[in-house]
């Protein structure tokens, strides 16, 4: 096999790399392009369309493009929020896949300088009667719970959906929300020639190598052998890392901070350099490795969890050592910021890779894919509801409906999540949105995550639009005013014209609702290739939403309160 194929690149992509470098890339460089130009990291099949999103608003302090979006909630406070998929890893190792999904999204929040205060999750499975589904459900729920519970972040809302289209491709979308004082916003940028680049947190191992490209592949037999792609989460380490980073951010030594997620050190270094318009030089020999004999290539693309890259003002490194030492964590200077725009990787002082940072971060070719309205839509939209027979025994039908896993109570799920830790949860799971109080103010925030993928299948545009509306209704019903959206777009292969039609129209649908409701999209994530040889998932654009509750005393739950109270149905 051609070397570029082994790292998941196409011939024309390889040619573009040669053009950028003016030479053939070496093995390390090729691997770095492979992970950065994968669908998962480069958004090459979605970037063009994501530009359509309504991302502006008076409250928006940080839109898409950073680790998380940030909105102003007044009183000097802001909310950081982001949702992300961990579908493929969870299909292979439900417990660890889901757990590391939570870990990743938490880091996205605290890199922004925000303290995580709530987690949400949207999980989708095949039919519950299958043993395989049960095993996935148990593992995924336990993984989400154990990780969030251990770090001490309440999981206050979510959704759990069953449909046979997810039989081979369960979905795990993890969302996290944090609070910060507006003045404390941090970004993932590297600036200031000579400033230090530090790697903090866990050691670097061979786990998760190739994970980013793995996330963008169909789940076929091959991936079952792709064994090193699964990582084990360490929530205890995450908790320490979170406390240490939040303490560090309060000092004046941090220039930029970025977590190491997909594509590890490669992505963190080229993204921070590219955002800051600078270059970075790192020496892999300084990275603390878990195993002996790791090559520069392995170190650069390892996806070991619970690590962060911190850009520190020159001369203030000691402060970082002090704080990380207190928390019992590693911190090492692995390089420095330069002004030549290059990501230069050294091994004991010898250059082993050197590429323009921005070409890795944003240089991948953008695909403008063609799309076509899928045929099934015509067939389904021609169905006449009037022809459906009315059930004879309505009481029986009601009971059947209530028993359906999609309608029945999800207490089995959320009772495994600590939804009260932190003592801010005012409206607990089991209702519409979760509501948290904001200590020190009269306010609260309402949070929800919603999608009706069946509607999205019937009509992607209307379905996506109605998912935004459903989220907004959940927020409003809990006493909040919707202010912003984070979205996770789960779809099948973008190479399929019908799927791309679903994708495009879902974005347009979200966009219309988002404009009308004045809820800009401030962050999000795309997950393609959620399909197996047998089937593709329904289009599933999951909407995470935050709303402000001006007076927390006025938040509302769904329970009937007193005998004799009137019940009124409002709306159309």
């Amino acid at each position, binding site marked *: 096999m051609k070397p570029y194929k082994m790292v998941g690149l196409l011939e024309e992509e390889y040619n573009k790399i040669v053009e950028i470098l003016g030479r053939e890339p070496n093995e390390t460089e090729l691997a770095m392009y492979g992970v950065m130009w994968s669908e998962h990291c480069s958004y090459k099949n979605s970037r063009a369309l994501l530009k359509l999103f309504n991302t502006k608003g008076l409250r928006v302090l940080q839109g898409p493009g950073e680790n998380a979006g940030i909105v102003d909630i007044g009183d000097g406070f802001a909310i950081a929020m982001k949702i992300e998929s961990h579908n493929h890893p969870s299909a*292979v190792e439900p417990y660890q896949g889901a757990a590391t999904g939570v870990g990743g999204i938490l880091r996205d929040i605290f890199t922004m300088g925000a303290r995580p205060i709530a987690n949400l999750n949207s999980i989708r499975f095949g039919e519950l009667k299958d043993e395989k589904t049960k095993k996935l459900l148990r593992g995924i729920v336990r993984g989400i719970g154990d990780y969030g519970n251990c770090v001490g972040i309440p999981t206050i809302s979510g959704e759990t959906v069953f449909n046979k289209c997810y039989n081979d491709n369960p979905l795990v979308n993890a969302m996290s929300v944090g609070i910060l004082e507006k003045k404390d916003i941090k970004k993932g940028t590297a600036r200031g020639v000579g400033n230090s680049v530090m790697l903090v947190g866990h050691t670097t191992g061979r*786990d998760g190598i190739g994970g980013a490209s793995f996330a963008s592949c169909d789940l076929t037999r091959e991936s079952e052998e792709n*064994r*090193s792609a699964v990582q*084990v*989460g360490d929530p*205890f*380490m995450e908790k320490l890392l979170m406390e240490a980073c939040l303490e560090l951010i309060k000092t004046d030594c941090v220039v930029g901070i970025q977590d190491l997620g997909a594509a590890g050190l490669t992505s963190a270094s080229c993204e921070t350099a590219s955002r800051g318009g600078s270059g970075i030089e790192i020496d892999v020999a300084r990275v603390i490795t878990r195993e002996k004999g790791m090559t520069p290539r392995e170190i650069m693309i390892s996806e070991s969890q619970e690590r962060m890259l911190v850009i520190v003002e020159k001369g203030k490194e000691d402060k970082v050592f002090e704080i990380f030492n207190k928390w019992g964590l590693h911190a090492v200077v692995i390089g420095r910021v330069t002004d030549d725009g290059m990501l230069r990787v050294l091994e004991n002082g010898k250059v082993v890779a050197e590429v323009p940072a921005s070409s890795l971060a944003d240089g991948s070719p953008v695909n403008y894919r063609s799309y076509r309205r899928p045929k099934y839509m015509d067939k389904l939209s021609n169905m006449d509801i009037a022809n459906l027979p009315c059930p004879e025994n309505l009481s029986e039908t009601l009971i059947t409906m209530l028993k359906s896993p999609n309608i029945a109570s999800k207490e089995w799920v959320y009772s495994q999540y600590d939804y009260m830790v932190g003592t801010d949860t005012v409206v607990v799971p089991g209702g519409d949105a979760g509501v948290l109080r904001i200590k020190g103010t009269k306010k609260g925030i309402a949070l929800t995550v919603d999608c009706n993928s069946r509607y999205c299948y019937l009509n992607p545009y209307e379905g996506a639009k109605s998912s935004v509306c459903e989220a907004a209704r959940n927020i409003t019903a809990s006493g909040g005013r919707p202010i912003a959206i984070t979205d996770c777009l789960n779809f099948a292969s973008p190479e399929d014209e019908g799927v791309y039609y679903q994708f495009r129209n879902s974005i347009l649908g979200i966009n219309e609702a988002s404009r009308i409701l004045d809820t800009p999209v401030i962050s999000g994530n795309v997950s393609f290739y959620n399909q197996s040889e047998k089937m593709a998932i329904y289009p599933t654009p999951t909407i995470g939403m935050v709303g402000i509750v001006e007076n927390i005393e006025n938040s509302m739950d769904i329970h009937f309160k007193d005998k004799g109270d009137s019940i009124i149905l409002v709306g159309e």
Partner: protein
Amino acid sequence: MLKAYIDVTLKKSILDPQGTAVKEGLSKLGFEVETVRIGKHIEVTLNDMNRENAEKLIDEMCLKLLINPEIEVYSYRIEEE
């Protein structure tokens, strides 16, 4: 009766947070050791059968339920009870 003693451990390349924490715990108590890895120990009692069949059975159980070959490996011994 036969008894199988099965040990399940994480693959070598995979991080073992429990082991790391315990290693540090031991060190605090003054025990300096090289590495600690923590896994599961499973004891299964089987009805009498020949050893070969027992081994086949245990292998099957491991691969089907007891371990996830993505991240774990196993080994076992079988003894008469």
